[in-house]
């Protein structure tokens, strides 16, 4: 039994020990642990004693003692255990107690955080607030402090609260705006009042013209009595107001020229005023709508009275100019008013100078061109006076591109009209600087449009600087005078009289003609051929084709002979090509001629076109010679006849416009050869251009041996070729340099006389025996007396065997320098 007990105890001890061992007692319960440890140690000692007793022979008496002791120890152990557990419970309770406040405070913290976030959000929302009127234009702060009334400003200072300040400024703004509204109302009221007064005054003004009219009417008898032509002048001025701008410029500039420089000219405006007014009204209605209605109404007021003034005006059907009809008449529709310019001779200081010419300017509405014609061409002047007044101005071409475009390329100006659109007329009308707006709009609109105005003003200034009016008047005067002088000379020649010379200082003036003036006949004007102008391109190609197809074209040529018997050009090919070059120099020329070629129905053949008649002689020569050579030598036919003849050169230089309206005459001088009585005739063809005398007459001379049958004509003239050319050069060129400037109008007479003298000289020398006309000694030549109508010299000189001429006291020509 005891052993069982021991085992139990040991087991219990063993069970206690592992339970006690992991338990770490806090220091407060250290004592209990100590007790536990001591009791355990004592127990082990006792057990050990008991074991030694049981194994040894020691008396077993001590055993109970030991058992008791161990029981005691067990009690102590239990006590210690209990106290440890007790301590543990106590500490747990203590921990629970300490945890409660911690939980409370953390909860509080969370609440506070939540609250804070809420506030932050609210603040943000406030700061982000936008006003409904974000940009109210406020007066600047300084102004506010300066101007705002006190009750608004109160005690605001710049460093005041910005918000308050803003509020105050807003208040001020409101105040100001209200004030302005009030002001506007006032103004409107005043405006109404003013317009009312204006209306009343207008009413008065509109009634005024009728008063004035009656006044003027009353004054007419008085004016007539006193001889004051105020009314006429006034009428001219009023009708000038109705002129289209180009004509107005012409009118005003000539008027200014007349008044400022005492130019011997007179101006008037003719045509139907009524039509002009109708036109103005139509124009303004069309262009500016109702705004100018008042003006036209005013014009209408003027109307009946004007009609009274103008008794002779016939009643014409009131044809309102329609802009839409596209027929020819529409194209050439002209403004009802015209400017008439009388030009008087200015050389004589006669109180009543001779009227030289009367020009009529008219304005074509659709083409926007000004045309000039001569009125009453009865005094020996015709329209050619105006043509080519300045170079390249035949008046057949429309002057500006826009007009050409509007009509299409093919339209050429109708030359049957009495007045033509010369370029100088356009310049005179200022059409080169007038803007291309519809006429009559200018005056009313120009106030609004400054740029147009300045353009016109500067244009007019240039106009005056260039002296356009003066230049034109002067040129027309010179032209008319020279035409008159020319007429006189032609008259003399027509009567086969030697033209008289006023100037005696030239050798041919004192030369007494030995030959006779055999005949003088007109060959007609080159413009009568129907095509005064050369066509270049189209003809060129066609001619080339012709030439290529038939190398011996010369034999075919007679079929191209024109109606008037005029010989066609031999080889117009190169001439045509060269005209290209020339026309490039003056491009407009080219276009015009193309236009003409398309338009004209009078073209007979291209050959005829490329021809300038004055060079027929040379062509004739070359043709005859060519035919000759061809028939003689067939092999020469293989060479392509592309040669350029001198005539081609001439026609090349003779630009189409130069020949326009040029007159041609044929002069024959006859001289008797002394030996065999043969007649030698000099045939001279002269082309007198309208530019006479600036472009002197151009002569082409040829020799004719008529009576002698054995002599071959063309051979003779070929034999004399160089001499004839020298004569031409002399009359065409050299003698012109010797003429005084005041003799210019007599150029034709001088040329005829000089030609006569040259012919006499050549023929006289020819008819002399060979030995007599030789002068072998140079000394004789050098010391020979200056000639006086007859010529002494070494006869020939130089490689071209030209005759020597020396003029007394004048420039040498042919025979330089003797």
């Amino acid at each position: 039994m005891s052993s069982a007990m021991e085992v139990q105890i040991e087991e219990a001890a063993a069970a206690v020990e592992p339970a006690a061992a992991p338990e770490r007692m806090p220091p407060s319960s250290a004592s209990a642990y100590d007790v536990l440890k001591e009791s355990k140690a004592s127990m082990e000692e006792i057990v050990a004693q008991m074991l030694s007793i049981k194994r040894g022979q020691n008396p077993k008496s001590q055993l109970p003692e030991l058992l008791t002791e161990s029981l005691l120890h067990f009690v102590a152990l239990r006590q210690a255990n209990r106290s440890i557990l007790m301590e543990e419970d106590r500490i747990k309770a203590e921990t629970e107690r300490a945890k409660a406040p911690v939980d409370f405070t953390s909860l509080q913290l969370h609440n506070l955080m939540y609250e804070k976030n809420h506030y932050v959000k609210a603040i943000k929302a406030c700061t982000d607030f936008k006003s409904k009127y974000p940009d109210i234009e406020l007066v600047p702060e300084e102004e506010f402090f300066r101007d705002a009334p006190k009750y608004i400003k109160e005690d605001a200072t710049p460093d005041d609260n910005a918000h308050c300040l803003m509020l105050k400024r807003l208040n001020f703004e409101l105040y100001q705006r209200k004030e302005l509204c009030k002001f506007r109302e006032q103004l409107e009221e005043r405006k109404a009042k003013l317009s009312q007064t204006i209306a009343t005054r207008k009413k008065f003004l509109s009634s005024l013209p009728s008063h004035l009219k009656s006044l003027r009417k009353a004054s007419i008898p008085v004016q007539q009595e006193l001889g004051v032509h105020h009314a006429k002048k006034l009428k001219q001025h009023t009708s000038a107001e109705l002129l289209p701008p180009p004509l107005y410029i012409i009118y005003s500039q000539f008027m200014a020229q007349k008044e400022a420089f005492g130019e011997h000219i007179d101006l008037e405006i003719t045509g139907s005023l009524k039509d002009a007014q109708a036109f103005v009204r139509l124009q303004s209605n069309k262009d500016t709508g109702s705004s100018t209605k008042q003006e036209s109404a005013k014009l209408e007021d003027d109307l009946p009275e004007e009609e009274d003034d103008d008794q002779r005006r016939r009643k014409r059907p009131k044809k309102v100019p329609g802009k839409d009809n596209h027929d020819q008449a529409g194209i050439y529709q002209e403004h009802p008013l015209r400017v008439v310019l009388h030009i008087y001779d200015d050389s004589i200081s006669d109180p009543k100078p001779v009227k030289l010419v009367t020009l009529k300017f008219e304005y074509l509405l659709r083409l926007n061109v000004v045309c000039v014609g001569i009125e009453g061409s009865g005094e020996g002047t015709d329209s050619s006076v105006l043509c080519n007044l300045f170079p390249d101005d035949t008046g057949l071409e429309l002057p500006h591109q826009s007009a050409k475009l509007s009509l299409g390329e093919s339209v050429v100006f109708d030359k049957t009209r009495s007045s033509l659109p010369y370029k100088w007329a356009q310049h005179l009308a200022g059409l080169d600087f007038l803007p291309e707006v519809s006429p009559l709009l200018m005056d009313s609109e120009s106030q609004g449009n400054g740029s147009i105005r300045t353009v016109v003003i500067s244009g007019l200034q240039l106009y005056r600087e260039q002296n356009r009016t003066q230049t034109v008047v002067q040129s027309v005067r010179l032209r008319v005078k020279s035409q008159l002088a020319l007429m006189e000379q032609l008259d003399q020649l027509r009567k086969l009289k030697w033209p008289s010379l006023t100037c005696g200082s030239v050798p041919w003036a004192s030369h007494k003609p030995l030959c006779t003036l055999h005949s003088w006949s007109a060959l007609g004007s080159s413009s009568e051929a129907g095509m005064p102008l050369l066509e270049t391109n189209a003809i060129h190609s066609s001619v080339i084709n012709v030439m290529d197809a038939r190398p011996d074209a010369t034999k075919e040529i007679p079929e191209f002979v024109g109606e008037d018997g005029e010989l066609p050009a031999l080889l117009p090919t190169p001439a045509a090509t060269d005209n290209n070059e020339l026309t490039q120099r003056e491009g407009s020329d080219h276009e015009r001629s193309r236009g003409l070629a398309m338009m004209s129905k009078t073209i007979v053949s291209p050959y005829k076109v490329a021809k300038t008649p004055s060079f027929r002689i040379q062509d004739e020569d070359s043709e005859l010679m060519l035919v000759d050579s061809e028939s003689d030598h067939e092999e020469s036919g293989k060479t392509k006849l592309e040669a350029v003849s001198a005539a081609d050169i001439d026609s090349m230089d003779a630009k189409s416009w130069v020949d326009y309206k040029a007159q041609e005459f044929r002069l024959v001088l006859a001289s008797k050869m002394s030996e065999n009585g043969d007649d030698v005739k000099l045939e001279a063809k002269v082309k007198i251009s309208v530019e006479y005398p600036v472009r002197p007459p151009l002569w082409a001379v040829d020799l004719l041996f008529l009576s002698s049958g054995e002599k071959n004509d063309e051979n003779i003239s070929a034999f004399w070729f160089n001499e004839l050319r020298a004569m031409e050069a002399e009359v065409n060129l050299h003698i012109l340099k010797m003429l005084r400037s005041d003799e210019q109008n007599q150029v034709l007479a001088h040329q005829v006389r000089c030609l006569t003298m040259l012919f006499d000289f050549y023929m006289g020398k020819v008819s002399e025996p060979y030995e007599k006309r030789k002068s072998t000694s140079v000394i004789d030549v050098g010391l020979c007396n200056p000639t006086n109508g007859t010529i002494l010299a070494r006869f020939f000189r130089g490689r071209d065997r030209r005759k020597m001429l020396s003029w007394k006291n004048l420039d040498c020509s042919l025979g330089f320098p003797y």
Partner: protein
Amino acid sequence: MATATMDVRSWNEDAYRETILQERESRCRTVFRTAFAPSSDRNPNPNSIPDVIVAASSDGSLASYSISSFLSSDRLLIAEPDCFIQAHEGAAYDIKFHENGEDSLLFSCGDDGHIRGWRWKEMTAVTGIRGAHLNPVVDLVNLQHKGPWGSLSPIPETNAIALDNQGQSIYAAAGNSCAYCWDVETGKVKVVYKGHSDYLHSVVVRNSSNQVLTGSEDGTTRIWDSVSGKCIRVLSMEKNDKLKDTPCVSSLALDASESWLACGSGRSLFIWNLVAGERVSRIPTCTSVQDVVFHGNQVIAVGAEPLVSRYDMSGEIRSQIQCAPHSVFSISLHSSGVLAAAGYGGLVDVISPFGSHLCVLHCRL
């Protein structure tokens, strides 16, 4: 032309009149002589088309034209000269090149009696500027005759010049019936050939036998010894039966062998064999012959008609070519066979060896 645009806005009548006269003047000018300039190449191909032609005109100017620049167009051109110098007062009658590579000289003579030599290199350097002044390298003046009381005759003109092979002597056909041989180095007259009774038209040099031939207005051709100045022979041309007077000898030409002579005299062309000393043929022409040149065994003659005629030695016409000038004063032949016919109207017609027209120049003032 600036005047083409002249109108009322800027009117100058005098200037306009001046241009009209100028235009007329350019129309009645005559080119008296043309010459092909020596090729600038070292080894020129003799068959290539010449590039430069020089024209001497009646206004005393020498102008050179570049043919190649006009070749492209077949039409008549108003040619702008490459270089233009006013060489003489009065007309310039003759020009001759002395070919010597870089140092080629161009000699010109004229109505003022001057013979002037120009360095070709310097002339080509003168670029088209009008009025550019160029000094002649040589300037020789014909002598004036002294008359009674010391009066001086006018300076006679020089109608033609010829050069010898070395370029040392210039033979001049002068207007006072004499021909002169000038020494180029010293500028003095070496020999005077006196005997003609009227002024001289032409002169050629027969280098192979030291002879000079002159053609005169008196209707004779004389052969002179070039050194002694003695007249060896007078070749009289036949009297023209139609005209009462003896026509002048206007032009002379020698063939390459210098044994054949062609004389243009009035309306006839005479061919002489100088070796045999006799006239071979007389070729009648339509108009008076004004220049003549040998081409191989053919004679090319031109006159006061717009034709260039080729004849063979027997006087048969080989061909006739139409040319631009109506009166041809000069026919020049290039080694390539290119011909240049020049004359009245300031025209120069350049004709290819095949008879086609290479170009026609219209020389302007």
